[in-house]
């Protein structure tokens, strides 16, 4: 049974609400709404993806943050968690998925491999996903435990609630250049399209 309506509302209609209205800035409301249901795209690559899934499990429960809906379609996602090492072959795919995401969008680089190449400083791995897409928060660890991921997510929430609401994130993304490194040429051979 629904609770009875307050007497003021019954007597005066909406006018009876006059002392109960909260006022605030539209900006705050938008930021609050964005931070409280940040849907991640499933972008599991390697070991970190397993820990990302563990964070979605019962012990760590990402749904506390309104984030349990991992979207398979980048069109429906707000946050890309790059979980794992990004190879030269994967980088164009990653960039394409980032471009497909709708504004506003954020990127979380999970683990040292995504953040800096980690222990794999060789021909195959992109040394940091920030060479491909703009990154908002880096989570350290190899792999970061679910707690570290949760901390990174809380950090990104703070960033959302304190940032600008009209900024277009993809403007920070430079052209996509994938370098073929064999150590013999001074500069890498460029593969893929620079835009």
């Amino acid at each position: 049974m629904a609770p009875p309506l307050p007497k003021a509302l019954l007597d005066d209609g909406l006018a009876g609400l006059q002392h109960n209205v909260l006022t605030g800035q539209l900006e705050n409301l938008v930021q609050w709404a964005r931070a409280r249901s940040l849907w991640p795209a499933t972008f599991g690559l390697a070991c970190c993806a397993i820990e990302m899934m563990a964070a979605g499990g019962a012990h760590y429960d990402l749904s506390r943050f309104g984030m349990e809906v991992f979207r398979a379609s980048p069109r429906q996602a707000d946050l890309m968690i790059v979980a794992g090492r990004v190879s030269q072959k994967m980088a164009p795919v990653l960039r394409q998925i980032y471009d497909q995401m709708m504004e506003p969008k954020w990127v979380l680089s999970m683990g040292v491999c995504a953040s800096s190449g980690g222990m794999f400083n060789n021909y195959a791995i992109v040394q940091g996903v920030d060479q491909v897409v703009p990154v908002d928060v880096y989570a350290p660890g190899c792999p970061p435990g679910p707690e570290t991921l949760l901390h990174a997510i809380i950090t990104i929430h703070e960033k959302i609630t304190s940032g600008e609401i009209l900024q277009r994130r993809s403007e920070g993304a430079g052209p996509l250049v994938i370098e073929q490194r064999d150590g013999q040429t001074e500069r890498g051979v460029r593969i893929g399209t620079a835009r």
Partner: protein
Amino acid sequence: MTAVETPAETIDYHARLRSGRGVLRMSEVEAAQHGDKLADENDETMLMNMGPQHPSTHGVLRLMLELRGEQVMRSKPILGYLHTGMEKTAEDLTYLQGPTNVTRMDYASPLFNELVFSMAVEELLGIEVPERAQWIRMLMCELNRMSSHLLFQATNGMDIGAVSVMIYGWRDREEMLRLFEKITGLRMNHNYIRPGGVAADLPDGWRDDLLRIFDTLPEHLEDLDTLLTGQPIWRERLQGVGMISTQEALDLGATGPILRSTGYAWDLRRELPYLRYDQVDFDVVVGTFGDCFDRYAIRLNEIRESMKIVYQILEKLPKGDYKALDRKVTPPPRARIDESMEALIHHFKIYTEGFKVPEGEVYVAVESPRGELGCYLVSDGTSKPYRMHIRGPSFVNLQCLPHMMADSLIADTVAIISSVDPIMGEVDR
């Protein structure tokens, strides 16, 4: 399900595997051209791309599917999206650093990678590993097998649509990972098994923690039985899907649950025992039909077999050293460094230039949760491997995919991929 089925004995599998049935061989360029040119009106086939960013391709597997309506005619797995160059990196790391590298290959069962690398190095060095270290390795590997199969149950359920099973699988895996964290210091990528033994002895209270997990695990496995094994929908989705015969599996080099699902009892723990598997009693679980359901059931029951092994290990675990006392190979205990100049020198040498391994080449294999995990190691007498090659079971098993998927429905592809249980880190390395 065709009305008239050819009896299995009359099929020439050798010829069928090479007939191009189910296997699509087409490069990116050709595929792009295929899309451009308008096929003639009678051509009802279509090329479809699946992955590498797809929720149920277990990471970054990509498939090129040739479809006729809902039916998969041919398919091609495209790999390399997680190629990490680990075999190249291994040539630049000392033997002591090696496990750090290989453990990141098959990230669902990292301890097996460390084990096979360490065993190859020990074989080249010709050193004996103490008894207790062997048993600790066995204990950890069996626990890892259980956590890996629990991960399979979680992802397999999720792929097929039983999303709550994912939570069930993670529940027990999480307990297992906490035990790993207590013993090795890390939840994954432990670097615990090292040439010469293990990194540290088992900590206080590990036995109680382990038994506490085992108190609830059988019950939780029965939950899975209730939720999945007996359910008509689950059986409909898996039974008779992705069939493969023994001959095909052998010809394709498939190992592990895929080979066993065809009724061929081949388990390296039993057939070519390593560690101390000849001293424990366990059953090799085999299937009958080689379909997805058999592969699911084998993995579920292997968790129970592993429990059986672990109980025996708990009884038989001997006292003693947890690593070889060869000071040229394993670092001295921390306390010795303060009092002995020699220990300090050994410690310094091992961590700066590493230990030298005699020339030679060796191939060692263990039974990982996915099949035969092998390591081919070539040493040129220095402290770094000259060549380190890992034979990843997922990589070879993935070759079964086109043959399993031939003539199946597109809705079944996800079930078939999931039943192969590929870990892309190990496929691409």
